[in-house]
């Protein structure tokens, strides 16, 4: 089971309290009635499904109830970071480098 840090509650809680909500940073077209079938497929059905770094939404459904985003590795299932909805994609390379530096300083 995953341990997930909710950026609103500022607490690490078990996966049981959360619901995964698919890819993050997908913007619903404002002119949804006018877009072409290709654009609708792109918006509605096509997802990244990466082997490696994924940006995804989670909802703390049995907690604060709010949506937030996470950067996670889909091979190791490790969370790099979680961040509030509306914030830009974090720089995962910088996060990893920060951890390495911390490790070296020790």
């Amino acid at each position: 089971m995953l341990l997930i840090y909710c950026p609103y509650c500022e607490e690490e809680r078990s996966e049981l309290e959360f619901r995964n909500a698919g890819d993050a940073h997908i913007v619903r077209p404002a002119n949804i009635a006018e877009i072409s079938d290709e654009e609708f497929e792109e918006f509605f059905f096509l997802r990244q499904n990466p082997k490696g770094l994924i940006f995804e939404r989670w909802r703390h459904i049995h907690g604060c109830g709010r949506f937030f985003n996470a950067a996670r590795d889909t091979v190791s299932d490790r969370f790099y970071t979680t961040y509030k909805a509306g914030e830009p994609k974090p720089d995962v390379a910088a996060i990893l480098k920060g951890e390495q530096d911390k490790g070296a300083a020790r």
Partner: protein
Amino acid sequence: MRKYSVFAVAREALRGHKGWGPQWASPEPRKDYDVIIIGGGGHGLGAAYYLAKEHGITNVAVLEKGWIGGGNTGRNTTIIRSNYLYEESMDIYEHSLKLWENLSQDLNYNVMYSPRGVMMLSHNIHDQQSFKRHINANRLYGIDNEWLTPEQAKAYCPPLDIAKNARYPINGAALQRRGGTARHDAVAWGYARGASDRGVHIIQNCEVTGIRRDESGRVTGVDTSRGFIGAKKIGVSAAGHSSVLMEMAGVRVPLQSQPLQALVSEPLKPIFPCVVMSNSVHAYISQSDKGEFVIGAGTDQYNSYSQTGGLQIITHTLDAICELFPMFRRVKMMRQWGGIVDVTQDRSPIQGITPVPGLFLNAGWGTGGFKATPGSANLFAHLIARGEPHRLAAGLTLDRFRTGRLIDEAAAAAVAH
């Protein structure tokens, strides 16, 4: 290929079983092939077998990054049935079931197909309405499926608890008597042996790292961990990794890869005569010929390639099993594992041409790919050989997510299946 028969077994018994050879060859890859199939699971090996057997195309290689049958073919719960709701689904799964019935004879390899019956439990009025709709649709289409009262269900599967005050009360069941199980490893090995005998190259430990295309966009071959291998046509049949491979050819596909877990118990004497599935409480169980209970759990909620899953998922399944079959409460579980299933949004598979000339896709079988193995392989071979889908797989196109012609088994079953 040496034919397996009772006489061969008797002869070898007298010679101390020293005369058995390898079941398939492990050749060095050629520079190029007419067809390369990526993915050495049941679907891929079967497609190679049918390409050679039914379409006369033998200059074929199956590339497998690990060992054959080591992915989802070796990780499923071996359930076979064809009682789906929509015609597109019934077509392909029934085609598959008919091939299962004669597969051991066709391959000269005992795949241990056992039509012991698949019983789906109904727990509430919604289940009942949905199942009866399935039964009526199936029977109108010529597929067997019948409704059982709780007492009839108990008679068919005696360990079942049908008490009115049970935690998950049962108000009936749908039974497909021709459904059942088969031995998953034997399916991969049998197809590999049959394909290899007809000249197909089975190349293990050969991971595809790129798909090359010429100026016109047509595929020319694949880069692999064992160098470049040319191909006129490429079939992708790689389950959870299909979207990774399609990305190499620049094609985005509506697939999500998620862990799906299964587990087996310690072996017991024969006690469980059929396959029982409960969609509402999400548990399915059968007993293997070794005596182990084979139990399937649900998918995890997040995308992952980790081939593991959360413990809470299998705990939930075992909770349900213990309620449905109270006599199994003290059975110990022996092994647990996860496979990576590729799930489409409408929970129906994708088998068809792609925007890239020469590249064919067989994916999206999600949580139910094993039962489809012979049918899918047979029709995928047809697709690769002819360049257009067989009538029975014509609806499973990749572009249905653009045209809107979805085959919405997800809504029909309301769970992964």
